[in-house]
């Protein structure tokens, strides 16, 4: 039976207090804060981050597929999973697919991955979900949403077993967004909650327990997605599991991130689970998915894997609502017009996305980008293609106010960095305060959207200061 081999999560570094959002509009505030993706983040970049977290200590070339779930795909036509797989440096002879259109898409993807593993068509599939949803400014929904990503590695081998998938197809107009809508829309929330959410979630959960012959009392933890802290308890009560056992829905710390919520909650639950635990997952959205996760043995900590808790602990609070407005381009500004080339982007995907470099067989120097002739010794065509490390040290830098020939008020830090393990790159810095940059500082490489040249998303790598936990 399909197992869970690893898990991962990602929460953008930035948080915005709902009080600040409310004050900006002069409306009542919801308690807590929400996460906010930076302007160079989207569901693809966050999926790469969560996938990276999930694959800590695992060779990405051993994975047979990548399923991506989102309601905010950066491309409506063009697969996102392939971009994510390249950013994660996975093989190309793998099964990639996008699951989209529903807040339930992450568990649809997870179920498909488990089916693939159970059928023997794949040894392992990485399931990643990410969303960066937009609510109408000034509404309460704007305060309630958050941005984030989650991941699980479904495999023939792992510490937890996936069992008893059950799905309910529910046609309710709960939340929706037409292709021409900028913001999520919703109808009467009470009706959606009572008939859309409750009915299908309870039915799916009950079906799992009944089919798998598990008593509600045996469930050690309920992972029940909801857009508020109360609803999950009602579902749990109706299914017959302990409402006090529920995994936190991240209402006060992240907000509702949409499709990835279930995987973020699952990641946190798996990190804390003990051998013998039984987790009941109930995910909602246009119906519901439910399944059991049985913990065969506790997940041992993995170096480099942060999971949800460590991501929540590292944060920077945005001082103003206008920071959020700028990140989400709520105000129309003059757009820069950098040059892009789909041909160059394709030809150099292994350099720009997979972040490969060339090590000279003659002088051992790491060349980046990959040349035909070694920049150090002049030897021609004698290179091994290597993976670059994702941590580095700043050699020198500038804080550049010129971007695509335009003066910008907020300087862009541009760093010359020495990659740990060899190689030197010239990268922009993100997520940080330009004033904090100094020679010798340690940085992580993160996958971000560089620009929109030629009308497509030009993804590449940037640096950010290694985040520190803020207690």
């Amino acid at each position, binding site marked *: 039976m399909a197992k869970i081999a690893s898990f991962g999560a990602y929460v953008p570094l930035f948080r915005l207090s709902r009080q600040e959002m409310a004050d900006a509009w002069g409306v009542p505030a919801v308690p807590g804060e929400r996460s906010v993706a930076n302007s160079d983040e989207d569901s693809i970049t966050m999926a790469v981050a969560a996938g990276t977290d999930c694959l800590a200590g695992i060779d990405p070339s051993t994975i047979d597929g990548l399923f991506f779930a989102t309601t905010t795909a950066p491309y409506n036509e063009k697969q996102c999973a392939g971009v994510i797989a390249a950013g994660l440096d996975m093989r190309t002879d793998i099964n990639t697919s996008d699951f989209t259109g529903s807040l339930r898409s992450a568990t649809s993807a997870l179920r498909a991955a488990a089916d693939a593993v159970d059928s023997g068509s794949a040894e392992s599939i990485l399931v990643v979900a990410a969303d960066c949803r937009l609510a109408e400014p000034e509404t309460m929904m704007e305060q309630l949403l958050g941005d984030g990503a989650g991941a699980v590695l479904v495999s023939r081998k792992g510490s937890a077993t996936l069992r008893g998938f059950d799905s309910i197809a529910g046609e309710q107009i709960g939340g929706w967004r037409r292709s021409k809508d900028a913001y999520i829309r919703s109808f009467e929330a009470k009706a959606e909650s009572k008939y859309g959410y409750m009915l299908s979630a309870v039915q799916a959960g009950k079906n799992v327990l009944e089919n798998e012959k598990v008593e509600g009392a045996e469930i050690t933890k309920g992972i029940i997605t909801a857009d508020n802290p109360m609803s999950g308890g009602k579902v749990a009560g109706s299914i017959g599991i302990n409402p006090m056992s529920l995994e936190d829905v991240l209402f006060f710390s992240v907000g509702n991130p949409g499709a990835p919520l279930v995987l973020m909650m699952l990641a946190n639950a798996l990190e804390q689970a003990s051998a013998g635990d039984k987790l009941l997952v109930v995910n909602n959205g246009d119906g519901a998915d439910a399944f059991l996760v049985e913990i065969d043995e506790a997940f041992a900590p993995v170096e480099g894997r942060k999971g949800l808790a460590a991501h929540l602990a590292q944060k920077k609070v945005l001082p103003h609502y206008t920071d959020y407005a700028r990140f989400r381009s709520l105000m129309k500004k003059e757009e820069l017009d950098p040059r892009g080339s789909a041909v160059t982007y394709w030809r150099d995907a292994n350099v720009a996305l997979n972040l490969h470099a060339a090590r000279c067989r003659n002088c051992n120097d790491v060349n980046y980008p990959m040349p035909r002739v070694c920049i150090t010794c002049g030897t021609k065509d004698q290179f091994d293609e290597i993976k670059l490390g994702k941590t580095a040290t700043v050699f020198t830098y*500038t804080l550049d106010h010129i971007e695509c020939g335009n003066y910008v008020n907020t300087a862009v830090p541009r760093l010359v960095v020495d990659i740990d393990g060899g190689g030197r790159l010239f990268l922009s810095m993100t997520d940080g305060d330009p004033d904090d940059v100094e020679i010798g500082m340690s940085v992580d490489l993160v996958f971000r959207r*560089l*620009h929109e040249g030629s009308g497509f998303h030009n993804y590449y790598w940037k640096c950010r200061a290694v985040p520190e936990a803020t207690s």
Partner: protein
Amino acid sequence: MGSMKDKTAIMGVGCTKFGEHWEKDHEDLIVEAAYEAMDDAGITPADIEATWVGNLYDFTGLSGGVAAEPLKLFGKPTTRVENFCASGMDAFRNACFAVASGAYDVVMACGVEKLMDVGGTGLPVDMGHPILRGSSAPGMFALAATRSFHEYGWTKEDLAHVAVKNHINGAKHPKAHFRREITLEKALNAPMVAWPLGRFDCCAMSDGAAAVIITRPDIAKTSKHKHDYVLTKANAMVNEAMLPMYRSSFDFLGFDATRTAARLAYEEAGIKNPAQELDLAEVHDCFSITEIMNIQDLGLCAQGDGAKFVREGNTHIDGSMPINPSGGLKCFGHPIGATGCRMITEVTKQVQGRAEGAQVENARLGLAQNLGGTGSVSSITILGRAD
């Protein structure tokens, strides 16, 4: 390697005023510079057998037509030369080769750029790979400044001294773009462009053109400037990495292109001690930090001593090693393709004792240096009086 020493002579030079020539196009500028050079040489367009024109940006024009069309130099060859900021001096270098080979008796090297026609927020640098590329021009050189601060303890004030000195010189030159002196405080408090480079660490964005008439020494002896013609003592150019910030061995403290070109040029000219033998140098101060690095790379002071050398006043017009008596790129201006020939014009007039701006006393041997890209190409010309 052979030598070009004393094989070519400068018959005449010309240069427009550099600045924001809103009312003129590149035709006006190149005609003004070329006719001034021809008048200076005492020749007419019919005497010019071949032309090389330095020009970086294709929005000014493409092909030899950039010079041939405005000057109606038809029925003979004109070559457009592009080698980043060294384009103008590379045009001069190729023109010298043509004369030294014996193919031509009289040729013209010129350069032109019309930057202000495309607006003024720094140079357009949207070229090369759409992802794996450099940044703005100030951003690239700021990387060297930050590293030099770290290694040598230099400060923004060290950089400001360069700007103050170049403004003193520029104020005296009738053809300079900026003709006002500034205070150290003004330079230090200017708006930031790319930390640590502020507005006064960056050279002018200018329109302009310059031209040089080149011939054989035996012809120069009978020309209008027979008593004070100038000989090319050396000409060296070296290309290095386009994007050194991806090169792990690059230390950001100097540019090998200049160091190598300087060694070759001094060898060719027979110069043993450049700081003592050279009377002046026009160096490529696209940014204040670049002037200091160039001084070091040219061997005019020791590596690491550049800021101190400047601070002590050595580079002033009356100092031990006058640098950029014209005001440099900072104040004279920097219409890219024109700058190399503008420097040669300035050094020629200095060693002839007829500088239009501040004259270096008893100047007889001078150097001009162009640096292109991020130290990607450096071109050096050494000029000396024939007598």
